[in-house]
């Protein structure tokens, strides 16, 4: 909400802007985001994360860019340092949640059916199955798709877009909305650069900068363990920053009562 674009005019006060025209019809000025209901739930999710000092990270990429492999390698390396949980989004199957659970951390699978993205409501439902109070990081692995996930706020603190080197270095120019939104871009599977002559990491970086995005761009290979320390460093920095903020805010504040409701069927 701000006072410049008109988003402060809500359904609650829209009648103030209402006016009758000559035909007895009312024209109601709204000036509200089309996804304001989703955004409202996203803000609610963010409040849940903030209350518990949990860093929420939204991972977005095309299918097969290596989101789950990144999570597996990250959990292997950091599970003694941080308490981690994962929310998995896919159209079908529990495969990715099973891969994450095999690493010893809780994972909630959201199967979206035919929906091409996660939205704030789905994440909110999943949150009620996670013990947020004991966690440091929640990774939200979005549906593999470089288009739709970019339009839906989830309430995450940071959005990461992965680009595997097998996809082509001009992907940020082809899918500008999702790469513009990224707080961090991870070039994945970089061990394959040796056998690919058509992916130039610098060109990929130029495409991201052409979107006026100053996000750091890290080159990693989760499978071969390349560049992972830089990624862990980024993650530690983000967790540290959030903990510092939330301890400042939580002084003299009682823990808010958790809002639980009956599980919806899925584990």
């Amino acid at each position: 909400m701000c006072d410049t674009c008109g988003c402060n005019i809500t359904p609650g006060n829209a009648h103030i802007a209402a006016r009758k025209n000559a035909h007895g019809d009312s024209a109601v000025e709204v000036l509200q985001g089309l996804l304001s209901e989703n955004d409202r739930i996203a803000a609610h999710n963010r409040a849940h994360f903030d209350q518990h000092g949990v860093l929420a990270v939204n991972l977005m990429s095309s299918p097969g860019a290596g989101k789950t492999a990144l999570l597996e390698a990250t959990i292997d390396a950091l599970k003694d340092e941080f308490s981690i949980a994962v929310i998995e989004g896919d159209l079908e199957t529990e495969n990715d949640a099973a891969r994450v659970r095999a690493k010893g951390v809780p994972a909630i699978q959201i199967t979206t059916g035919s929906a091409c993205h996660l939205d704030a409501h789905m994440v909110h439902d999943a949150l009620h199955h996670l013990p947020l109070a004991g966690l440091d990081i929640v990774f939200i692995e979005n549906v593999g798709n470089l288009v739709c996930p970019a339009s839906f706020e989830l309430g995450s603190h940071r959005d990461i877009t992965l680009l595997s080197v097998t996809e082509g270095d001009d992907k940020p120019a082809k899918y500008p909305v999702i790469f513009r939104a990224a707080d961090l871009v991870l070039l994945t599977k970089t061990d394959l650069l040796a056998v690919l002559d058509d992916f130039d990491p610098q060109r990929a970086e130029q495409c991201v900068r052409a979107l006026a995005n100053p996000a750091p761009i890290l080159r990693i290979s989760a499978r071969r363990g390349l560049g992972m320390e830089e990624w862990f460093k980024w993650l530690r920095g983000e967790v540290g920053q959030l903990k510092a903020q939330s301890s400042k805010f939580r002084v003299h504040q009682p823990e808010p009562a958790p809002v639980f409701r009956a599980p919806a069927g899925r584990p």
Partner: protein
Amino acid sequence: MHELAVCQGMLDQVTRIAAEHHATGVNRILLRIGALSGVEPELLHQAFPLASAGTVAADAELAIETAAIRVRCDTCGEETEALPNRLICGSCGDWHTRVVSGDEMMLMSVDLTT
């Protein structure tokens, strides 16, 4: 195609506004969509009859005005037009810019029958 989901979200808002004004119908819905919003106006038009069927806005006209992309340069201060995948300053060529228009996805107004 997430335009159907976007359309359903928009219709939830419209339905709520109509109820608050005790409207019997909705004549017209005006949206403003930027080229960087991630939503295609044409696909919204296609999704609208599916999403609005059975709602108070079933007979409404969906009007969409598009918003051109404009960026303001942090370096030289100029405001220029830009392309979705080329948000650099049209004046000095620097990429340190801010989008001032073109990423909006707004419900501007609804005309109600009361």
